[in-house]
């Protein structure tokens, strides 16, 4: 069994930067001509100051979205990439490959491929011979051992590759999305085999998108995001964090999309629109959080290239959960604007706002007098918050109320 205190992999402040040249000079002429020019390239920070340890006998999962740097990290651990900064310490014999079947040649037979693949993984001929029968047995390819690899079904190819990987007997096994191949039966067989591996005190590092795999098999997991470690901990927590993160990203994406749509709609009707709304307090200070009973000024900035006669500005206030609190417009309020032209603003004032703690969404719109042409309509685009000093309030609105007995 593993001595759990021993460290198998120590990653110490590792950073990795890729230089992506704008124009790759793959000809000598280009390189010669550009010797004196400043080299132009984009730097891409794939990993930023990443430190963690993997203990011996651990099944360690690395999870993250595309571009989070997880594959880069695995490649650095394997020695395929050299880190820009930082150090890697490996204690034990490491499998230097990330994908199954690396180095197999389709023209060779299964037998020849076991020897070729084994050598690439760093095994001696003697070591391969010793394991040959076990590899063949595990892959269930006894009858096809002298058949060319290219004539194997993809399932058979994976079986052979996995068998070789398992019996390469590295102490530390690195795997990148290995389970993306094969049917679910085979995937389970692989994972069970990884479990056996761990019981022998060997270490497995697995990079995956699959939360279920991490939660079911890993002892510990790490969540990466944009080259940073978000969290290291129990697979359950990491999995949940990952789901949460994905949800947040999704929310952000939707919001941005909406924003774009809104902006589009704002300027669709010629060059007329509401350019911004800012919230001010009674002293004219810009702020977004108010107290209950404060005056709130919503300054609506507009722009109109042509003259609009008798425009109507309207607003609507909604609570976070969509309750429509109020929706006045200048016409119903009896506030007649003769005309607008060019840039300007209009103040909408909520006197002694009788609202309790919460976030409120403001919708603003600009119409013609008959309300038949919507020049601008920005639905729930602007948010202000109320933070009430009074405790124990229930509901949304503070009504002028009294009690009598």
């Amino acid at each position: 069994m593993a001595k759990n205190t021993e460290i198998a992999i120590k990653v110490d402040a590792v950073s990795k930067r890729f230089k992506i040249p704008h124009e790759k000079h793959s000809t000598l002429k280009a390189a010669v001509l550009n010797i004196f020019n400043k080299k132009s390239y984009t730097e891409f920070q794939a990993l930023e100051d990443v430190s963690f340890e993997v203990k011996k006998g651990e099944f360690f999962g690395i999870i993250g979205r595309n571009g989070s740097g997880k594959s880069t990290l695995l490649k650095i651990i394997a020695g395929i990439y050299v880190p820009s900064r930082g150090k890697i310490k490996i204690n034990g014999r490491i499998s230097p490959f990330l994908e199954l079947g690396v180095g197999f040649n389709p023209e060779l037979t299964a037998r020849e491929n076991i020897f070729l693949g084994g050598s690439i993984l760093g095994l001696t001929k003697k070591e391969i011979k010793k394991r040959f029968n076990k590899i063949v047995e595990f892959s269930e390819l006894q009858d096809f051992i002298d058949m060319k690899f290219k004539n194997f079904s993809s399932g058979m190819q994976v079986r052979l590759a996995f068998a070789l990987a398992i019996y390469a007997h590295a102490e530390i096994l690195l795997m990148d999305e290995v389970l993306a191949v094969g049917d679910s039966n085979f995937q389970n067989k692989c994972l069970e085999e990884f479990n056996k591996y761990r019981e022998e005190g060997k270490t497995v590092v697995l990079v995956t998108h699959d939360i279920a795999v991490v939660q079911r098999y890993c002892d510990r997991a790490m969540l990466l995001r944009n080259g940073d470690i978000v969290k290291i901990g129990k697979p359950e927590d990491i999995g949940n964090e990952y789901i949460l993160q994905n949800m947040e990203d999704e929310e952000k994406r939707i919001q941005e999309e909406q924003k774009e749509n809104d902006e589009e709609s704002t300027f669709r009707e010629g060059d007329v629109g509401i350019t911004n709304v800012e919230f001010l307090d009674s002293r004219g200070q810009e702020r977004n959080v108010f107290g209950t009973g404060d005056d709130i000024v919503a300054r609506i900035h507009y722009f109109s290239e042509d003259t609009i006669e008798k425009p109507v500005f309207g607003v609507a206030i909604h609570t976070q959960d969509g309750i429509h609190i109020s929706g006045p417009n200048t016409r119903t309020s009896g506030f007649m604007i003769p005309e607008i032209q060019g840039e300007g603003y209009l103040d909408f004032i909520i006197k002694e706002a009788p609202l309790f703690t919460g976030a409120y969404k403001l919708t603003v719109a600009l119409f013609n007098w008959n309300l038949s042409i919507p020049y601008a309509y920005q639905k729930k685009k602007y948010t202000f918050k109320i933070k009430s000093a009074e405790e124990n309030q229930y509901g949304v609105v503070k009504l002028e109320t009294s009690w009598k007995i």
Partner: protein
Amino acid sequence: MKKTISYNYFGLVRELILTDFKLKYKASFFGYLWSLGKPLMFFGVLLVVFTKFFKIGGSIPNYPVYLLLGIVLWTFFTEATITSLTSIVGKGDLIRKVYFPRIILTVTASLTALITLLLNLVVFFIFMAFSKVSLTAASPLFILILIEFIIFTIGVSLYLASFFVRFRDIAHIWEVTIQVLFYATPILYPLSFVPDRYQSVIMLSPLSQIIQDSRYLLISNETSTAFDVLSFPFSLIPYLLPVVIFISGYWFFEREASRFAEDI
């Protein structure tokens, strides 16, 4: 269990060479016989053309074997360097997915050509047996020249392979260079045909020195060597160059190797 990352260099090189060799003749009926048959036919053609048609080497004793040896050695150099050139770039997929010492790929490419050389030498010795050349006590020293040749070739290959990752022009530059070197080396013509003042320039090249020394050791001790053409300290240059190129090539390759996975 081993505690440090050790690598079975030799095992992998051997396995890769065997694979290359197997693949080369995999689907052919005569298989390995081709590796002997091809040089045999080629040599036959050369002999007819250069001894019956051109008669360049009329005054040179044993010109046929003299010519053959030059061609055999030259073929190794071109084959080894040209396959080595693409040895890294051609295996890009492997390099991006698994770590192993990259130098193995380039050394393997050079040594695969060595197998061809050894087979060609077997054919060469068959030809020699039919001519009236007899080996001397010094002939076994040819092994040392062969080792020098391998070191030189691998050194050049290391430069070419690592340069090619960054500058693809090298392939064309090398193609042209090889053609120039072919005529700048006494392969088809005997060195004695060359005006004296050019002889010394030609002999500075390790290629000329290697071919001339091999002829000296195996065919005729009348062959002029670096020591005949160059004065003492200069005559060492062709012997030292392979070592310098090998060591600096190794250093250069290893410096570049850490970035191969990103650059390919």
